[in-house]
Structures are given as structure tokens and as C-alpha cells.
């Protein structure tokens, strides 16, 4: 069953187009993230679904019902805001019960349902507190409880974790996913944090400049970005310019200049002489001390270079490597039990064919 459908939705503010021809169908129980840089139209889209904004063109359906003309208070969507938006003048109990009072729920049932929600978000016993007496994480859990207690048709998240510190964010992310699965509610999650989107979603919609750029599972988005924008926006990568030297079966040879050549996988609309950009995920490159790897010399996709900078992050380490044609590479290496390489070390980078994604410079689309 489709719980939410947007058909060719466009939103203009004067001459500025915030959302352009946006269409999506969300299955019941699905967790969909809108991911994109700030100003890409993801929050505008969410606010149109909630009913705070009216689409300039297009239609929005919630569980089959067209809601374009329905005010927010008749849409039955539960929203969780970035700054929690708990009512400061009410207790936790009254905050959670707020929506129930407009649904003519009898008093004792309100009490039961509020307590049940507090149990669900693991904060029993806090019903008498004021929001100001709670930590940020607690406040956001109460906000989630307040949205869930009305049994909404949709759960809408507007960057709900971005005001929390890193550790709490991760913890709450896991809890959020568990609760969403437990309740089985269709959810739309707006975020600019790729890690959040990747770990939470069934499906990610990448947006830029008001348009949907790509929609797919987290795996598809990360492994098979259809455009340079998606590849660039998600993950840590290096880019290298080149020109197609030859196309052989499923592999393409790319000349990088300075006599360097790389092989990339992928066959598409590409011909000899085309300009391309190769994207290489930083964690897919293996880095080795140059002197120890004489046997690799001269092989394809083994590039020589010098470490220009090192940043040590505990569990992994970032190497910034300049290869022979002066292109910069970022390499993320797991620490393991190795001793780290140092600045100015000469190194070899080995890159698998499949880890090199090739985009044509002309259309920015993937080959």
C-alpha cells in the first residue's frame, strides 16, 4: 500500500523555485530520507507534506486521500522538529497528551497512552517534569512520543538529531530506528547528514537545488551513484580527471596525463577521447610503503605518490597523497596493528577496478 504520494510537486517563492517537479511514492512502513545540502528543498518538501506550506503545483496524497487543501491539523501527521519544539509552559505529560485532547480521547485513555509512550521512549517517570528540566536527548525522545501518541499516518522528521552531540546522536539514531520498526510507521526523515541517512533509511532520496537527483537504497546510493553530485555528496572520495584511451569489454582505460593510466569498470555511452572524471572512495584504496612493493611496479591502478599530510583519528587514519601527476588523493586506512605512515613517505596506492567510478565530464552522469 502507498501511504504517501507526491505527484509533480513544485514550490515557488516568488521567482525562486524551492522544489521542482518532485514525485515520489512511499510504501506503508517505509523509512525514506531526504538527503541534500542546506537549501536543496528537502525541508520545504517536508513542510508541504505536513501542510505548513502549499505546493504551487502538483498533488500530495496521504493514504490515497488528496490533502492539498487540508490544513495541517487535519492531516494526521506527526512531526519531530530539529529544536524539539516542546511546549515550555506544559509538563511532559501535557506535551504528550496535547494531540490526544483534540482527538476526543477519554481522560483515562489519555493517561494510559501517555504512560505507554513514555515506556516506549524509555523515559518513564518524567511525566511531571518541564521540558527545560530535560536534556536534549530526553527532549527529543519526548517530542517523538508526542508525535507517535496520536497514531499518525505519517511520521515526519525535520533534522531531529542535528542539535545533539555526536555520541548521543548515534545512540538516538539506533533507538529511533528500533522504535520506527516496532511501531511500523511510514516515516520521512529530512537530514543533511549522510551517515544518518545511510544507517536509518530503507530508501534515500538525494536532492539538490530543489530537484530529486537520485532515489535508491543506501547501498545503491553509495555504490552506484548515478551522477557526480551524488558521488561527491556522499562518502569521502578523491577525484581525478582523465581522457578515455580505450574501451575493452567491460573495462575502460583512462589516461590521466603524465603517462599514467587507470582501468575502471563500467561500460556506457563513452568513446575513446571522451573527457572523464574518476571518483575513488577513500576507504577503498590500499596504501603501502613504496619500497616494500617493488613487485607491483608498472601494474595498472597502482599509483605512486608522496604523503603530504596525515591526520590520525584513532580508529582510522587519513592520508593525503599527491601522485605523480600532482593529483591529490585522500586515503582512509584502518589502523589495525600497523604503525602509521609518516608525512613525506613515498607510497604506492592500489585501487580495484570496481572502486573506480567513472563520470563523463560533459553530463556529469556515470558511465
Amino acid at each position: 500500500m502507498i501511504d504517501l504520494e507526491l505527484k509533480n510537486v513544485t514550490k515557488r517563492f516568488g521567482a525562486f523555485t524551492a522544489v521542482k517537479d518532485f514525485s515520489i511514492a512511499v510504501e506503508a512502513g517505509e523509512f525514506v530520507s531526504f538527503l541534500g545540502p542546506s537549501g536543496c528543498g528537502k525541508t520545504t518538501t517536508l513542510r508541504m507534506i505536513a501542510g505548513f506550506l502549499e505546493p504551487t503545483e502538483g498533488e500530495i496524497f496521504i493514504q490515497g486521500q488528496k490533502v492539498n487543501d487540508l490544513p495541517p491539523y487535519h492531516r494526521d501527521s506527526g512531526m519531530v522538529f530539529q529544536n524539539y519544539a516542546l511546549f515550555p509552559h506544559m509538563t511532559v505529560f501535557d506535551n504528550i497528551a496535547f494531540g490526544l485532547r483534540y482527538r476526543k480521547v477519554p481522560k483515562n485513555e489519555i493517561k494510559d497512552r501517555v504512560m505507554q509512550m513514555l515506556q516506549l521512549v524509555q523515559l518513564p517517570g518524567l511525566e511531571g517534569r518541564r521540558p527545560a528540566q530535560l536534556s536534549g536527548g530526553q527532549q527529543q525522545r519526548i517530542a517523538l512520543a508526542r508525535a507517535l501518541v496520536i497514531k499518525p499516518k505519517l511520521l515526519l522528521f525535520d533534522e531531529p538529531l542535528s542539535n545533539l552531540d555526536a555520541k548521543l546522536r548515534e545512540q538516538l539514531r539506533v533507538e529511533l530506528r528500533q522504535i520506527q520498526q516496532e511501531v511500523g510507521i511510514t516515516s520521512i526523515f529530512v537530514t543533511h547528514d549522510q551517515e544518518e541517512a545511510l544507517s536509518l533509511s530503507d530508501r534515500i532520496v538525494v536532492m539538490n537545488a530543489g530537484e530529486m537527483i537520485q532515489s535508491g537504497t543506501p547501498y545503491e546510493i553509495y555504490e552506484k551513484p548515478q551522477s557526480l553530485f551524488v558521488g561527491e555528496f556522499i562518502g569521502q572520495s578523491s577525484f581525478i580527471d582523465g581522457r578515455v584511451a580505450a574501451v575493452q569489454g567491460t573495462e575502460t582505460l583512462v589516461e590521466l596525463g603524465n603517462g599514467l593510466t587507470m582501468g575502471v569498470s563500467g561500460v556506457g555511452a563513452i568513446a575513446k577521447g571522451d573527457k572523464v572524471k574518476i571518483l575513488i572512495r577513500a576507504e577503498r584504496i590500499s596504501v603501502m610503503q613504496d619500497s616494500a612493493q617493488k613487485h607491483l611496479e608498472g601494474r595498472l591502478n597502482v599509483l605512486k605518490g608522496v604523503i603530504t599530510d596525515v591526520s590520525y583519528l584513532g580508529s582510522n587514519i587519513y592520508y593525503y597523497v599527491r601522485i605523480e601527476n600532482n593529483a591529490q588523493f585522500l586515503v582512509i586506512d584502518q589502523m589495525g596493528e600497523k604503525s602509521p605512515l609518516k608525512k613525506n613517505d613515498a607510497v604506492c596506492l592500489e585501487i580495484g577496478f570496481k572502486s573506480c567510478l567513472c563520470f563523463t565530464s560533459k553530463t556529469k552522469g556515470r558511465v
Partner: protein
Amino acid sequence: MAPSRGTPHAMGGVIERISSNPRFVLGLQLGPLLFWIVFFLFIPLLLIVFYSFCLRGLGGTIEYTFSLKNYIHFFTTPIYRKILVKSIVIAIEVTLGTLLVAYIPAYFIATTKTKNRLLLLILMIVPFWTSLLIRNYSWILILGREGIINVYLMKWGIISQPLELLYTEFAVVLGLVHWVLPFMVFPLFSTIDNIDFNLVDAAKNLGANDLQAFWRVTLPLSMPGIAAGCLLVFILTVGSFVTPSLLGGPEDLMITMVITQRFLTLFDWPFGSAASIIYLMLMILFILVYDRFIGLKRILKM
């Protein structure tokens, strides 16, 4: 302070010694303020208290005896109690009226998306640039028997007799609302401006319609501004003199008019002083009650 010891400049040493004396520094800081309070508030007030226990002699002189007669006279004469009650009733009417009239522009200015919010706020103070007297006279021109309201209503045949608008309690309340409006708009504006309108969205999202969201979220969150504005307006109005004397009828006497009359017309300083002290005590009592129920701390925090 050790390095300053033994400096060769004697002047520097003196200043150093004085400024290192915390009591002296405190005195310098508080001195002007204390002087002001003692000479312009405390001493005049004591004089009034003193006079209030004296009696009026022949020809407006003062008999220096200790007597409670003025106070007893005030409380045993029904007309004074009536005037006191009337003053409070008018002040309450003005406060509620101002709240209603001021909330709309304050809300509008706080929530408008135009860049000229400052200009709109300044426009709210423009009436203050003309003197209170002139503003009251213009109400006379508007409300009088020959005023524009009556003239046009009669011209259009809506009424045949001019309405008695001027010299009524209504005129007094109207004039006072006009006068105190900015005192209500500003605290309201600053509170509403600080409301997080995500809260209103959250309320609507949870099922409250526009009116319910306003009633349960916006209005309670404007309370600090409402409390501050009402306090200011109430105190200003109870003590108002010009507007009720110009726009009010013989029935609309306020306590300030009694005090003025006693001092200036009847030369009865002792009774005027007693009335002033009663009025002052009433205001202090009012503020204490207000603090007890609403909390002045919350207002002062704004």
C-alpha cells in the same frame, strides 16, 4: 596590589590607596543614586506623611498637631471610597482595553516578514511626539456634540440626536487607552518576538486549529509581556489626571483629581497628603499582590 607599593609618585599613591578601598569605591558608585533617592523621593515623601497627620487651619494654614482625622474622614465619607473604586474600575477597563487593542499590532509587528519592523515600532511611538493635552483636545473635537462622529452620523441620517460621547467614562477610557498604548505594545512585542513559532506549527501538526493553537500556545507564551504591560498600564492609569479631567464628566472623578483639588483649590494640604498616602499604600498593596500571583521576577527578566 603589591607592585604599586613604594611608587615614587605621591599622587598615584593616593589614588591607588583610595581606589583600593572597596567602601570608598562603592560609595562613589552608589552616591549619586542615593542622593537622588533621598532628596527627591524619600524626603518629599516624609513631608507628605508628616502633613497627612496635621490638620487644616483657618485660611489654608496648617495646624501642627498629631491627628488621624484626615484618614478617618477619608474612609468614613462614602464619596471618597466611591472615587477610589471608580479610579480602579477605570484603570481595569483601560488595562483590558489596551491589552485587546495593543495585542494586534504587537503580534503583527513581531511576526511580519517585512524588513521595516523598526519603522513600524517607531510609528507606534509617533503619538508620543505630540503633547498629551493636544491629543486629549483632539478627542474633544472627535467626540463632541459638534464633533466629526456626531456630524457625520447625523448627516447620513443614522441618528437624529447627537450622541453623548464626550464627558463620559467611555471618553476617559478611550483617551487613556490612546495614551498608554505604546506601554503595552512594547512589552508584548518583545515577548511575541521571542516565541518560537515552531511551537505553533507543532500544535497545528498535533491537531489544534489556528484559534486553538493561539489559545494554548501563543497566548500562554505571551504571558510575561501581558503581565508587564498590564502592570505598567494599570499603574499609569490609576494615577492619570489630565485625561479624566478633560474628557470625563462630573461622575468620572478619579483619586488624582481629589488630591489636586485639595492641594490647589481648597488649600487643604493635610487632607490632600492623607489621600496621597492612601493612594500610595493602595498601589504598594496592588504590586505586592501582583508579585504574589504573577511574579515580578519573571517580568524583570524580560
